[in-house]
């Protein structure tokens, strides 16, 4: 075998000398640049949307630092170690979800948090990583495309945590976890025929699900379909958000000049609706640039997945990449009024705790996959 073929195959090989520090630190530079860009955008728009609160900026900076730290740590861990932990992480997550369910019953109300000393923590966040890891592990142990009975078992592996999360009730996270799991199935080679045959099942399932939804969840869907029916209630978010985006125009109102966000008309302007605050101040051009950064990150992650050396790495990386894209689409779709309001933050830009840590952990795994490749012949 010609060694030259392998060096071409490992795309970064030619640049290895120049970026040797990045390689030694197991960092993927393009991905890192993309993530740092998002973090910078986050701090810039947060300064404006928080009413120029340096305190908010400081806390977000702290959180970003912590998240990047976790990413860095995970990037050092070789994928085969992660593979071994998958089952245990999944089981640990399930136990915590059940614990939350029990505490929630005692507290007689919606319960998503678990208090571990000073740390408040959402077990459903663990599942965002644990479910794709578990499934990637499961499918890596067998020939692909998977057989039917294995699919059924995989579906159960997804359905149990999703059901528990949906019961909390946290519909948004449940949907995201389900998507993360399903994506592993998809990349594992789930047949198109099978997926198409699931469509009527899905329609019937949503009809059934409608009857199990909480009133406020139904209301969200109804308000999404016609926001003007409830201008001061749930529709208020969507109306004010589209006003903010629309009034931004091509060039935006300028940094710190967004009237919708600085005058409190835009609700959740630092968290779920931060994209509206951003699009108001930086306009269409700014929004286009931000979306391009996201698309670049998704593309880079898919590329990393495609370069993955084993089934586990590839399935997990691709699932994380597309889940990340789904996040972006759900959030921007929600904020622009294309999708219902489901309470999904804009990844890495929204102000907030757990989700940024989970996301960066995911990117740490991706970096690990990218930087732990061995130049082995097939």
């Amino acid at each position, binding site marked *: 075998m010609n060694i030259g073929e392998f060096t071409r195959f490992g795309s970064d090989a030619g640049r290895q000398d120049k970026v040797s520090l990045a390689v030694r630190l197991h960092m993927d530079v393009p991905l890192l640049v993309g993530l740092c860009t998002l973090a910078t955008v986050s701090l810039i728009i947060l300064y404006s949307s928080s009413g120029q609160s340096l305190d908010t900026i400081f806390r977000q900076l702290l959180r970003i630092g912590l998240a990047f730290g976790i990413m860095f740590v995970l990037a050092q861990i070789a994928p085969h170690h992660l593979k071994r932990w998958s089952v245990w992480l999944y089981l640990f997550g399930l136990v915590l979800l059940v614990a939350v369910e029990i505490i929630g019953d005692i507290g007689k109300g919606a319960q998503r948090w678990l208090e571990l000393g000073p740390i408040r923590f959402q077990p459903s966040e663990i599942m965002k990583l644990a479910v794709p890891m578990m499934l990637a592990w499961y499918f890596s142990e067998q020939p692909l495309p998977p057989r039917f009975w294995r699919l059924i078992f995989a579906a159960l592996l997804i359905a149990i945590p999703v059901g528990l999360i949906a019961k909390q009730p946290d519909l948004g996270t449940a949907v995201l976890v389900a998507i993360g799991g399903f994506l592993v199935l998809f990349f594992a080679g789930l047949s198109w025929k099978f997926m198409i045959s699931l469509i009527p099942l899905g329609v019937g399932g949503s009809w059934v699900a409608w009857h199990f939804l909480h009133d406020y969840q139904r209301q969200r869907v109804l308000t999404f379909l016609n926001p003007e029916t409830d201008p001061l209630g749930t529709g208020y978010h969507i109306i004010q958000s589209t006003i903010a*985006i*629309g*009034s931004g125009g091509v060039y935006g109102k300028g940094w710190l000049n967004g009237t919708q966000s600085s005058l409190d008309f835009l609700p959740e302007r630092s968290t779920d609706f931060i994209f509206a605050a951003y699009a108001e101040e930086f*306009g269409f051009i700014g929004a286009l640039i931000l979306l391009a950064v996201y698309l670049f990150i998704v593309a880079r992650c898919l590329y990393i997945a495609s370069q993955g050396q084993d*089934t586990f790495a*590839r399935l997990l990386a691709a699932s994380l990449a597309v889940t990340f894209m789904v996040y972006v689409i759900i959030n921007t779709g929600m904020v622009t009024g*294309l999708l219902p309001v489901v309470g999904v933050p804009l990844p890495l830009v929204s102000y907030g705790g757990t989700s940024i840590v989970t996301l960066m952990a995911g990117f740490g795994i991706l970096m690990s996959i990218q930087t732990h490749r061995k130049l082995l012949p097939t």
Partner: protein
Amino acid sequence: MALRITLKDHFRETEIFLARAVFAGIVAIVLFGAVVSRLVYLQMVKHDHYTTLSQANRIHLIPVPPNRGLILDREGVVLAQNFPTFQIHITPERVTNLKDTLERLANVIDVQDVDIARFRKQLKRSRAYQTVPLRFRLSDEEVARFALDRHLFPGVELVAPLTRHYPQGELTSHIVGYVGRIDDQEQAALVDESNYEGTTHIGKTGIEKQYEDVLHGFVGNQEAETNAQGRMIRVLKSNAPTPGVHLHLSLSANLQKIAMDALGDRNGAVVALDPKTGGVLTLVSKPGFDPNLFVNGIDADDYKALVTSPDQPLYNRAVNGQYPPGSTIKPFYGLAALEYNMPEATGQTPCRGAFSLPGDTHRYRDWKKEGHGMVDLDRAITESCDVFFYDLANSMGIDRMSTFLGYFGFGTRTGLDIPNEFGGLLPSQAWKRAARKEKWYAGETVVIGIGQGYLLVTPTQMASFTGVLAAHGQRMVPRLVQSLENPNTSEVQQIEPHRLSDLPIKNPLNYNKIIEAMTHVVSGARGTAKGISKDLAYTMGGKTGTAQVFQIKQDEKYKESEVDEKLRDHAWFIAFAPAEDPKIAVCVLVENGGHGGSAAAPIARKLFDAYLTVQGQPAS
């Protein structure tokens, strides 16, 4: 073996995976494209629409109420103005401990429980950043004390908004009226509600109510940037309000004062006007009240005192007091007799102290028990012979009397520019059938012949009719406001006097006969008002009268001293001067004053002297 082969089939796995990854990439591009196209729609296609919505969100118009127009008398004396009064306002969000602040404030200024109760009530309905008034009308001492300790009260402000103030107080209370806080009914009745945004007060009575539309002015506004809670962030643009118009009255505060003082401690009304223009010079109703009490809401105690007072200070006797005119009606019947060519007008009528209808024993007595002897029209007016007019009324008949008085305007409002004017009562056979469902009796005509019975007039009407008579039938609508002044340009717009059609009198010389007779009332040796003729610098025509408050029985003698004060007759006097070219006509009514010649006529003399002469000599 087969299992192992499939496990190792990396090529196929990679092929599937790469196909799926490419598919995912395409889906990602499509979905991002969907979001981008939505952004194109929102930020480019519908940009103007959303810009409008965003502006509507943030920009609010804050009304700036106009300054109310001033009310001035004919010499420029201020009757109504806008005066800063000190108030204490509190902004709740700037006060750390409201209870403590209120307690400490009570040591500095007078804070009653009612003030706190009202404050708390309003506090509940307002937002934390909106200021709420705690005290109105602070005394100078309180202002001084608070000013010293101001730094101890963050969030407590001393403010001085413009408040309506009536410097003449009681003197012009029945004319100018007063403003008060807009009530629900008035709010609902506003023609242009938006013009009253920010306005708290509205004219309730008098000129203030009558001319509300011009006094108020037009609201201005500030375009203010507000946040989602409605708090003002900054002012972007201001449109100044258009202040209300200043009203110049024909009224003279000086004459008003003279008339008020001349009434002494008697209640009554004095109305004087210029017969050529209808401009009202004096309109006194005594007692008056302090209109300033009403501006920011009157105390329950003050209000009770006004309402329960036997003197009825809130009652405007000049325009709402309806009294029988008594003998002051006689010159009008005299003119009717001349106009109808009645034999009494040119001949002599015997007076033996009483009159009886044919076939009736009832005796209608003359005020002079022994009678006046043979009297002609001139003497009948000069000496106020009752029998002459009993007889005249009987021969003229109620309907002819009523028609003739109707020419002057008896029974209808004069049209004076004051709200709720009364029109008196002009009786006729038709009126009695309609109103009382009874037939007319001849005796009622006789009594109306000397101005008693059903016939009722207001002092304003009587002043107006006297002016018509003096001006040879020229009928002017009486009015108080003579010009409007634009406060911005000081441009003055005169209000043209409103002239009605002249009296339908066929022989204008008839006026002269009546006017001459009325000058004899004042200057004649036997005139009933001869007591006021001393050193008169001008010719004055007049007529005395008494309106019965209480009907004395047949053959019973009315003794003033024996009758309770409140049941004594009302004294009337109507007059004009100079007789040959009348410049002023007056009607004086002194409630329970007794005789017109002694109680009412001197008031007219004082007024005329003040208006027509300079230190006793005729004015130019």
